[in-house]
């Protein structure tokens, strides 16, 4: 994951994204939000590549005027979290399995209707992946993943 500390300017995300697209690097996920200082934004970009590629990306990003700091992190000090919202079909057949899975995987129910429910899963990237793999055969109708939030 590439972590950027940038000035909170209207086009800073476009600039950062432009470096990735212009140089042929891939953005797999992205989150951006202001930090405790409203003039400063933190952007987390999920990307993969060998260390030479990652170094190249970092060097190009550092040249941007609005970018204050760039670092590549595999594991952050205080943890990384992702969130997923998952919509599950509820039928007579799967209802019990679904309820058990929700409990086992520590998910939160956001909406419950008679024929579907929407749950929220948070955890590390691996935990989210595991949850999705688990829910898919159980009747997952739709899902939305956030990017990585890290401290």
């Amino acid at each position, binding site marked *: 994951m590439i972590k950027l500390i940038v000035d909170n300017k209207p*086009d800073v995300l*476009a600039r950062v994204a432009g470096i990735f697209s212009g140089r042929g690097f891939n953005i797999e996920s992205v989150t951006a939000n202001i930090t405790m200082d409203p003039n400063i934004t933190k952007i987390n970009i999920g990307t993969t590549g060998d260390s030479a590629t990652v170094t190249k990306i970092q060097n190009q990003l550092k040249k941007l005027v609005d970018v204050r700091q760039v670092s590549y992190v595999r594991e952050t000090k205080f943890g990384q979290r992702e969130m997923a919202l998952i919509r599950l079909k509820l039928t007579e057949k799967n209802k019990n399995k679904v309820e058990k899975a929700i409990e086992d995987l520590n998910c939160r129910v956001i909406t419950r209707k008679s024929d579907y429910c929407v749950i929220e899963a948070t955890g590390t990237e691996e935990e989210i992946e595991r949850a999705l793999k688990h829910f898919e055969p159980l009747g997952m109708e739709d899902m939305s993943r956030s990017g990585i939030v890290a401290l």
Partner: protein
Amino acid sequence: MKLKGAQILIRSLLDEGVDTIFGYPGGAVLDIYDELHKGKLKHILVRHEQAAAHAADGYARASGKVGVCLVTSGPGATNTVTGIATAYMDSIPIVVFTGQVPTAFIGSDAFQEADITGITRPCTKHNFIVRKVEDLARTVKDAFYIAESGRPGPVLVDLPKDVMQAETEYTESAPLKPGSPDTMYVPDVEALNHVLDMIKEAKKPVIMVGGGVILGRASDELRDFVNKVRIPVTHTLMGIGAFPGTDPLSLGMLGMHGTYYANMAVTDCDLLITIGARFDDRVTGKIDAFASNAKIIHIDIDAASINKNVLVDLPIVSDSKSTLRQLNKMLEQNHFTTPEKERKAWLDQIDDWKEFAPLSYSTGENIKPQYVIETLYKLTKGEAIITTEVGQNQMWAAQFYKFNHPNTFLTSGGLGTMGYGFPAAIGAQVALPDKTVVDIAGDGSIQMNIQELATVVNYNIPVKVVILNNGFLGMVRQWQELFYGKRYSHTNISQVPDFVRLAEAYGAVGLRAMKPDEVEPTLKKGLDTPGPVFMDFAVDPEEGVYPMVNPGAPISDMSLGK
């Protein structure tokens, strides 16, 4: 005092030390042009916005100052994109001011609206849109600072019309100058000691210099360094003039159309000291064969350029001037002496290569373009400012005109923009009115900004244009001859205009030479004639640029000619 945005803009430019800008008016910039009418800032009206950008670029390269141009919104702005990308690829400091529709209309697909900040985001060092007049003065300062600090580059500032009309308090203040390189780049003494060790150990060292030495104003320090270490010097296209071309230690240009001896020396060397160059593909040829026996030292101001294409053994992120100065000091303190025997053996080997394949061409009935360049060199005593277009004209100029000073060879190396040379020559001539400025062009390239004949005549800007007229898009024709079975697909442009009559139609002087013995008298007459002159030389249509490194091949694999 309260001033309108347009007034603040002009005042800010004057505060930055700008005395001349290039531009073309339009609706969105009416308020700025109204302010310019007062005449406090000199403005050169071009005939196409692309030329305004190239002229600002040529002005910057020739003078070492930041070049400035002003265009209107929409198509005016988009017309500068090629010029901006040209400056971006060669790291040239220019600030491009573009008009914009009023802030309330932005994003509404208004008349002559273009998202120029979006369009130029990948080809500017940075860009701004000024949404409040209170931000204007500061933005101008920032733009100039960014353009000329670190690795220079083009900066665009978008100016909405209502912001130019709005008023605010204005106080004068000094420009933000980048810190002196000596304070900004503290030399890593350990690394520099390593450099000296590597030099002492090397038996076959070569120095390779690029445009960074010229941008870093490090020519004097470089010459000092070379005189101390007695290492032969080669240069990239962008490095021409960084080291005197007539110096016996100069190997000339390396790369795709470099000299045989430069390419062989770099291939064979055991130490390559690269300063201010970025290992571009035209220079390296097949990358894993480039300087494969050598340890490579890379001194560059841009960390992103280091280990980007070629992995180096000793990277030094620093500015060239202060690094070379520090190295020179250390060489003196260490009482460095060249290992005479090894150096002689290496230089003798290089002399053998020079003897085997000097730059050459055969003469005949037709005018040879190389002869035109050599004669131009002779008549100008190598002291002219030369701009080029792109292609064969560019390569022959680089090979056959010897440059002893930096900032005297202005060429679009990175982007390779045809149509660059004529407006860039205008910019250079405006910057240095007492110098002889010559654009070396092909018949294809000169037509891309031919409308600037009006500009040179209007202001009596005495640029001389040497057209190497072979009736073809020469470089592409050469590739079609060598690699596409002579299938000259759409490269025959013999339906060219009569350049003499065209120049005269604009009110300039036009001269023509058809035979070899007419070359020198025509050049002499053209150079001696005051005012802008077009000289049309009918050159051999199938002449080629040699040596030529075959595409995808190592630079040691060259064709030496037909």
